[in-house]
């Protein structure tokens, strides 16, 4: 679980000043007759899903969702089935037409795009990887990977060369001639990934890409995604129902319930400072020491002597690692960032984190309250 730590590092390394890749504001998706009236009417919008179904026959999949996806980050949308996360990701490229709200990619309005512009968006800027792969069974691996280029009108030789490169990259070299039916699930998803990568898109959208795979394969694939994110700096939107997966790959996580985002923040914030009981319930079984960092466990420097002694730890060090360090030396450790001592971690602080008693004393955690505006949440996450 070291990746979670390193991803935090990644986020912090980037300047938050860059404009977001995707900017979603007040997005609604309502299924059913005359869906448009639901978001428009405050009374209807305030109804619970059951009441709404009773009254209008409509189902709300996405309810007033806002967030930004920053360049280079892996933004995870997590929720149980039926929470609206898959609908949400499809709205981003209008595979599902949103009911209301705005979506912008690099500041450009997606909802206002005509068919041609939308196709161009799908072809060049955002590629998607699907849970059930969506491969063409009558084509070879190579032709599947080259498919995206083919429909763009890229010449045969060129697209095959590019596809071969992608196949190699996802580790399927030698299987180019096979058909999807002759591959294992993991291999098929690699083909899906290669197909998405072939067009060299700005953003990769993943819709529960690994939930159909065996645990071991899933882990391999997750590493692959993390590698892609870190090495190539690709922006990603990653949908999952698996909290472990979200914590592994995500720089930030938006947790959805019944169409709403109930909390949005770094893995550490989600685990360390659950916004409400639902989230708390959700993260209960997460090994906190592997997600939370020493920032959460440290106390202010008590005296000057403390700045001199003990092991020096980076602020992004996980509590688990810190425990090891403190146990080995037998003395409290210092949290040092760029030569400055930020605080001290001792047994007491570390144990508090592991025991989950740290929640109240932490200040950067978001106040558990009803629906903080996206703006404030984002600021907090960025802090």
């Amino acid at each position, binding site marked *: 679980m070291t990746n979670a730590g390193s991803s935090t590092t990644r986020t912090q390394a980037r300047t938050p000043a860059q404009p977001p890749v995707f900017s979603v504001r007040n997005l609604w998706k309502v299924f059913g007759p005359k869906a448009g009236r639901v978001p428009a009417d405050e009374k209807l919008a305030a109804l619970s899903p059951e009441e709404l179904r009773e009254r209008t026959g409509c189902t709300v999949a996405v309810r007033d969702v806002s967030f930004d996806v920053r360049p280079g980050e892996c933004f995870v949308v997590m929720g149980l089935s039926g929470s609206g996360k898959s609908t949400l990701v*499809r709205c981003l*490229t209008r*595979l599902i037409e949103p009911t209301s709200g705005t979506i912008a990619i690099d500041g450009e309005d997606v909802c206002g795009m005509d068919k041609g512009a*939308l*196709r*161009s*968006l*799908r*072809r*060049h800027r955002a*590629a*998607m990887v*699907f*849970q*059930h*792969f*969506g*491969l*063409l*069974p*009558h*084509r070879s691996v190579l032709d599947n990977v080259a*498919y*995206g280029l*083919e*429909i*763009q009108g890229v010449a045969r030789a060129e697209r095959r060369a590019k596809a071969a490169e992608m196949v190699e990259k996802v580790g399927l070299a030698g299987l180019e001639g096979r058909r999807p039916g002759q591959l294992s699930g993991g291999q098929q998803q690699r083909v*899906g990934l290669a*197909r998405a990568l072939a*067009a060299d898109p700005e953003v990769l*959208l993943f819709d529960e890409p690994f939930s159909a795979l065996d645990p071991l394969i899933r882990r391999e694939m997750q590493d692959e995604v993390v590698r892609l994110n870190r090495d190539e700096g690709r922006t990603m939107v990653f949908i999952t129902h698996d909290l472990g997966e979200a914590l592994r790959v995500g720089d930030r996580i938006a947790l959805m319930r019944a169409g709403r985002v109930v909390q949005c923040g770094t893995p550490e914030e989600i685990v360390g400072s659950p916004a409400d009981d639902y989230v708390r319930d959700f993260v209960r079984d997460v090994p906190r020491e592997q997600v939370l960092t020493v920032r959460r466990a440290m106390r202010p420097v008590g005296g000057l002597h403390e700045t001199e002694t003990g092991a020096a730890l980076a602020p992004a060090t996980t509590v688990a690692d810190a425990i090891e360090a403190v146990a080995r030396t037998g003395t409290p450790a210092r949290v040092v960032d760029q030569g400055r001592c930020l605080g001290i971690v001792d047994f007491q602080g570390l144990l508090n984190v592991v025991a989950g008693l740290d929640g109240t004393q932490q200040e950067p955690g978001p106040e558990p309250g009803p629906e903080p505006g996206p703006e404030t949440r984002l600021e907090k996450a960025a802090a």
Partner: protein
Amino acid sequence: MSTATTAATATAPRRPRLSPAARRVLLVAAAMAAVAPFAAAHWGSGMWPGALTVHLDGPLGRVNDWIIDNRDSHWLFLYFFGHISNAVVGAVRAVYVVLLALGWAGVTAGASLLAWRLAGVRAAVTALASFAVCGLLGMWVPTMRTLALMVVAVAVSVAVGALLGLAAGLSDRTFRALRPVLDTMQALPAFAYLLPVVLVFGIGVAPAVLATVVYAAPPMARLTALGLRGTDKGVLEAVTSLGTTPRQRLLTARLPLARRELLLGVNQSIMMALSMAVIASVIGADGLGDRVYQALSTVDVGAALAAGVPIVLLAITLDRTTSGLGQEGHNRTRTRATAEWATAAAATAAAAWAAHGKTWPHGLTVHIESATNRAKDWLVDHLSHGIPGIGGTADWAAHYTGWVLDPLRTALQSTPWWAAPFVVAALAWAIGTWRTALTSAVSLALIGVLGRWEPAMDTLSQVLAAVAVTLVLGIAIAVAAARSRRVERVLRPVLDVFQTMPQFVYLIPVVALFGVGRAPAAAAAVVYALPAVVRIVSQGLRQADPAALESARSLGATGGQQLRQVQFPLARAELLLAVNQAVVLVLSVVIIGGLVGGGALGYEVVFGLAQGDLATGLTAGTAIACLGLMLDRVTQPTKAPAHKEDA
């Protein structure tokens, strides 16, 4: 949903323990009780009252006369139908000339190589043997004519069917509009299609081709639409997410993914076309069907067999070749495939050249006619009477007619006319929806309005009796097949062959065995419908959930108990489908049975064709269509889960 259903649903909780089906039957019974006294008082209770019929003979006869008088002068014929007719005839002629130019060697070699490339070595051997036998039996020229007609008819059917299917596959509205039409067309007997085209085009090859197209295009359209609509949603979404245009989606994803359905559609179109091309001999299609027709009209079983065998072989060859489409050659490289096609073409050309494009050599024929006739005479002499204990075929035929058909016909014909539509509606609604109930009741009433009540009840009695026999035999055989692998292994190829046979062929042996009348028509119908029933039922029994069977066995159920209490209930859907298929197939043959003394509606169509009295024929044809529609809908279990909610 209608208000009627809502009412039934609303009152449901108050009624104690009535199944939805029973509730509906009660509802219909109530409606009938309301109408009956009035109807009976006004028009009596016998057959459909004359006051409620419409006589179309006059107007239809005038239309017929007008068409004949204006066929060479009116613009509709000169600029529209005329071109269609000429194009069809021109195309058939072109294909026929090519076939003749290829000669027997060229055609045989070409067909075998084509079969080899499309479906592998076994199909090639089948094709080779089949064409050789056609030649040997002295049927080369008729075979080529049927083939020429088939090539044109199938090409047009597939094109038309694919276009319709495409429209229905891409547009929901078209699909909703087209689907009931296609379903209905599939349930209609081939005979009903003949008259309208004869009315417009007269007798000849052009109307035969057109009737064939009308008959053979629906399965293609249906399967194309289903194939396109059945595209894996995930794949389609993935392809869309990559930025495809709708056209790209169609060409690179939907069509290739529907490949299986498309090929099945082509196969079905071909088999339907062959069946119709043979029947269309009644309207001047020439070819093999004409030989059978000529032979049947002189009860020359030998000659009929000599023409029937090539039809059977043609059917097997076409089926094997097209159902094997795409089974082989998947992994071959493009260049190799091209090379093989080139070789095949070259070999065909070489064979054609070597044989100088001759039709089958005269010396190389075998005459089976007289031998067959002697065998048939012997059979009739020895089997028709006096086999100790079980009587003979003629006795069976007499008993079947006297003890089964006659009482049933009397019963049907003496059912009060106003009760029949209600009975039908109740039956249809019990297993279907109010829509099917309404359609079937209206269809039946329409028969009465057309004034064909009496012959329709006659036909109906023949259908019901034959369906009963078919189901009893079919289910018995299916149970045997489902319980024993060996029986199934023996049965399978037999069923395969029987299922591809054109209906016409079945008339030949039954005339030999059962003579003439309603009994042979019933026998032919039973034999024709049996394979489908056996196949569907045995499949249903086999597919019964093994876990349920195992648990039944673990509780100590006997074989019979398992069958009755687990397999049959679980195979309910298949059993209903089997009944539906049996009804549709039996009807189609009972109608053709008019050619061998089946009488009733089928006879009226034959009569209409023979006398050029298209008014009679068309009325009977419409009545047949109504009967077909009614029978299909009555036995059609609904697929919509609409009434699950009120259960």
